[in-house]
């Protein structure tokens, strides 16, 4: 109770509340513009959060991402263009509801379900994280090595698309993470004599490059025709929402829980949670034939899931210090720069901060209602901002942001290099998720491996001589078996298709 009271005093201050509202408005704007994602919003926000205390920094990121996911529904419903990948699965449903004169209901459902899904996610996070932390306190470097490896393996399995390219993406990320001075022996690796590379490649320019610059390269050539005119006027956004919510209450609950669990898997973000939840809602529906015709059932389930997954990703991040996605990877980076190392101990040593983070999650989700309402009313204006104006401004912001992390122009070069790499990867169907997780998890895997091997005097069997370690090792081996089997099957299919 004391730590909860301490958390409320941390959260309910003018600066934190102002940051939550400002970040929400920023997230709303980013999510509503097609092509600008929640991850891109976070990458652009990080240079600013580096200068804040831990709680306001996390509050800013939590609020911006939650709002961006919800705002992504606006262009989907109004223009049939999903604002973020997380909205893509139900874009047609919402748009067709609009065509039937129910645009207010569609957008109202998006907002209310996102809010409810987010709250379910926070409740799951608050209940599960301390329980897992109690268990995780027994972990040694052996278990952390397997756990990080398991996280990376999961990222490939759930990232979708071509598994072989997913593995290569992950390996490239691991190689990138090795650049700089080795933390155990102090030897310089792959620095090519550059003093700037001795400290390794900074994560922020990598994120800005991969998520913002590559997207600008893809979007800017078509910017002259991206200005949108919204013809539909939204009237009474929340009318009729209550009745539909009551009718599909199990869909909301299922989407929320499912979204949280999927979000907790490394590499599986809001988009995957949304797709799976929609598919399951269709499978268990009494009227599956109505899906895709402007039916609200799938939209309700998927809207709840995509926002709940944001909370789910914080479970491995807070309990093990292992990020569930790029956004929580940034959060871990922000916490570590403030001297707080996420892990099971943080639930005891930083209990007020953990409770404050949960409280911020609830506030950010509750804010979705009023800000979402304003977003619906202002959607016409937001969507009419010409991308020919927006994209150059984002480009300048990216350059300043990349520079701001370490105050060096070298990071701007890094941003450019990763922007080009991200574009080439996207064009050739290489998933970016495994690369970014590998850049973050690489040092964790290597340092825990080296710690264990020194402890065991070079004996590799020490990695599997504890029950938890061997369980995690078997799980990792099973996932790798699945990846290899899937890779072989897809290679055969592709070869057969190319011969036909």
């Amino acid at each position, binding site marked *: 109770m004391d730590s909860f009271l301490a958390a409320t005093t941390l959260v309910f201050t003018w600066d934190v509340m102002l940051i939550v509202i400002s970040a929400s408005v920023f997230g709303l704007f980013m999510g509503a513009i097609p092509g600008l994602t929640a991850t891109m919003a976070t990458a652009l926000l990080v240079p600013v959060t580096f200068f804040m205390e831990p709680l306001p920094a996390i509050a800013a990121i939590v609020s911006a991402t939650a709002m961006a996911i919800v705002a992504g529904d606006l262009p989907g419903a109004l223009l049939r263009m999903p604002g973020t990948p997380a909205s893509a699965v139900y874009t047609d449903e919402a748009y067709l509801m609009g065509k039937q004169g129910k645009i207010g209901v569609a957008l109202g459902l998006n907002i209310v379900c996102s809010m409810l899904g987010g709250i379910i996610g926070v409740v799951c996070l608050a209940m599960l994280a301390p329980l897992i932390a109690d268990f995780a306190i027994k972990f040694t470097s052996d278990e952390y090595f397997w756990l990080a490896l398991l996280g990376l393996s999961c990222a490939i399995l759930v990232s979708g698309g071509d598994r072989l390219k997913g593995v290569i993406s992950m390996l490239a990320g691991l190689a990138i993470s090795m650049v700089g001075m080795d933390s155990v022996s102090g030897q310089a690796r792959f620095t090519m004599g550059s003093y700037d590379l001795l400290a390794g490649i900074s994560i922020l320019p990598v994120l800005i490059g991969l998520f913002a*610059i590559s997207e600008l390269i893809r979007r800017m050539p078509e910017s002259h025709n991206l200005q949108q005119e919204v013809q539909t006027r939204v009237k009474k956004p929340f009318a009729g929402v209550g009745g539909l919510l009551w009718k599909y209450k199990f869909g909301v609950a299922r989407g929320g829980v499912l979204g949280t669990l999927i979000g907790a898997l490394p590499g599986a973000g809001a988009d995957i949670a949304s797709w799976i939840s929609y598919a399951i809602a269709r499978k268990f529906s009494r009227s599956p034939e109505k899906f895709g015709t402007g039916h609200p059932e799938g939209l309700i389930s998927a809207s709840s899931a995509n926002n709940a997954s944001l909370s789910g990703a914080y479970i491995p991040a807070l309990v093990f210090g292992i990020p569930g996605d790029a956004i929580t990877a940034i959060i871990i980076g922000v916490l570590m720069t403030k001297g707080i190392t996420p892990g099971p101990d943080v639930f005891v040593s930083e209990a007020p901060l953990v409770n404050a983070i949960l409280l911020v999650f609830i506030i950010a989700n509750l804010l979705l209602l009023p800000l979402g309402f304003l977003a619906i009313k202002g959607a016409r204006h937001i969507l009419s901002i010409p991308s020919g104006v927006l994209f150059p401004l984002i480009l300048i*912001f990216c350059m300043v942001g990349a520079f701001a992390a370490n105050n060096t122009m070298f990071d701007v070069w890094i941003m450019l290099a990763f922007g080009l790499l991200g574009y080439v990867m996207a064009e050739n169907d290489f998933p970016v998720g495994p690369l970014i997780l590998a850049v973050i998890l690489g040092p964790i895997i290597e340092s825990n491996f080296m710690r264990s091997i020194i402890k065991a005097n070079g004996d590799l069997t020490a990695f599997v001589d504890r029950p938890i370690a061997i369980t995690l090792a078997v799980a990792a081996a099973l996932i790798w078996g699945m990846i290899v089997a899937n890779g072989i099957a897809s290679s055969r299919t592709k070869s057969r298709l190319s011969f036909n």
Partner: protein
Amino acid sequence: MRSNDKITGLVTVTFGVLVITNSRGLANLPQQDYGAGTFPIVIGGLLIAFGGLLTLRGLSSSAPLMVWVNDVPIKRFYLTLLAIIAAIVAYILLVPVVGFPIVSTVLLSLLLYGFYRQNWMLAAGTAVASTAVIWVVFGRLLQVPLELGILEKVVY
């Protein structure tokens, strides 16, 4: 620009070879068979193996080596790509000499005019206002050392 798997596969194999050749000189820890080179060599080996698999897949495919699969004309894409790269390189090279306010204003004016295709005055006005906002937020509030460059003598 989409490449055949044999090209991306060969690039991956080359990357793996480079990782291994650059790791071979790294010393092991005292009295251990492992050290700073262990992980890079394993990763390099796996890059060669999986890159090889991708190359084999590409060899059995009839897809062209390179193909443009976008609705936007390739000329416009290259011009835009060039503009983005030129803007970033100009920013890196010119800000330490000329200063952030002038470089940002000029770059933004050019980019806004180039991509929005409205009049110069509107582009320049938006560029000045945006540069001022970024300067206040990053330079003043967040204390990021954005160079004043040649304006330093004017301001101080």
